[in-house]
């Protein structure tokens, strides 16, 4: 996955929201990057730092929450934790799983001045 492209999408969202709120600067950016999403948090952080330089968000701290993965197991008929895509069900060992959580990439909140 291309963290550079994602970081610039994130920056645009951050700047749009900050401007709408009449912010002078963005102090903190809170995102949720699920553990099953295709994003490497450290690479995203690095890319965001570079992308945001000289903008309203140039001094912002990027806080990354990493919601854990989960999946619907057809055999258990239940939602089970899932560490990574392709793993078997940790409860019954079955392989018919559909991800139902932890794959999000979301801008949650901003702290602005």
């Amino acid at each position, binding site marked *: 996955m*291309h963290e550079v*492209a994602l970081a610039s999408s994130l920056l645009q969202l951050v700047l749009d929201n900050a401007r709408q709120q009449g912010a002078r600067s963005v102090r903190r950016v809170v995102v949720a990057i699920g553990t099953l999403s*295709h994003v490497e948090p450290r690479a995203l952080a690095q890319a965001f730092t570079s992308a945001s330089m000289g903008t309203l968000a140039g001094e912002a701290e990027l806080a990354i929450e990493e919601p854990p993965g989960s999946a619907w197991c057809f055999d258990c008929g239940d939602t089970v934790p899932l560490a990574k895509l392709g793993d078997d069900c940790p409860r019954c060992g079955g392989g018919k799983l559909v991800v139902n959580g932890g794959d999000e990439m*979301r801008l949650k909140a901003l*702290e602005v*001045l």
Partner: protein
Amino acid sequence: MCTTCGCGVGETRIGMALAGKGPLELVEPHAHHEHPHAHEHAHDHVHEHVHADGTRHSHPHTHAHHHAHTSHAHHHDALHGEDEAHEHDHGDLGFDVGGGTHQDQQARLIAVEQDILSRNDAVATGNRQRFAAARVLALNLMSSPGAGKTTLLVRTLETLKAQLPIAVIEGDQETAADAERIRATGVPALQVNTGRGCHLDAGMIAQAIERLPLPAGGVLFIENVGNLVCPAGFDLGEAHKVVLASVTEGEDKPLKYPHMFRAADLMLVSKVDLLPYLDFDVDLLIANARKVNPGIAVVKVSTRAADGLADWLAWISAARTVKGLAAG
């Protein structure tokens, strides 16, 4: 430029094999700076932050400094990106660096809750509406480099162009060679060169279809950049993502690149004419693909066998019917 798959020619390269999530700094190797230093080059210090939501945290960390260029980000419990073009005053707890950004009493918290790719997705939705209005089935073909996307398209067009209006968008980092291969069949094709970018995005397709007339009532094939990582995340507005896995690539690809195989509706197992010469277990490939995507359809293709594309052509026909795009 892509730090995950290493494609592109970015100046930033990071050892992504590092699994730990301790206080790890991602710093680029940098030339030693000329400015006089009053402090150790690597130094520990503590920041304390008070946020508008009331959280107060302090995190000690070691900075490996690189002034005078770019910036660094470090991953600890709260990720913290800082511009390094500033003065540090390291005795000073409870105060962060840089132009008085920590005036806590004025900070406001804004709840946003938007998908990071929401802009791409909005453009993709616009593309999808244009495809629907023109009754076009758009297919996004993805694979590792050289799995056989262009060859498959050329062979597919040789049959399909007599039956349906068709157009092709070719995505590659460089060269117009693939679009030229398509145009040699008489089918209109537009090359999109992404340069350092390693995937197509919805905006590129929106621009492309300004110049390439949509094949009304027919099929638009989009050949994505050869890459099993990046293209998976970007909706282009297509009806289906199709992933090619050639029999020379190994049965483990769906497990190594799960996002791609999860995103696809169809896996084309390509170059099956080579199976007699290989020790390749097609059933294992399919089982691995279904581990990450239980619903994925599978079709075997060969551009070297006389009827090697029959099942693929049948799948396209069925996809048009399901979408209500087939004539009659």
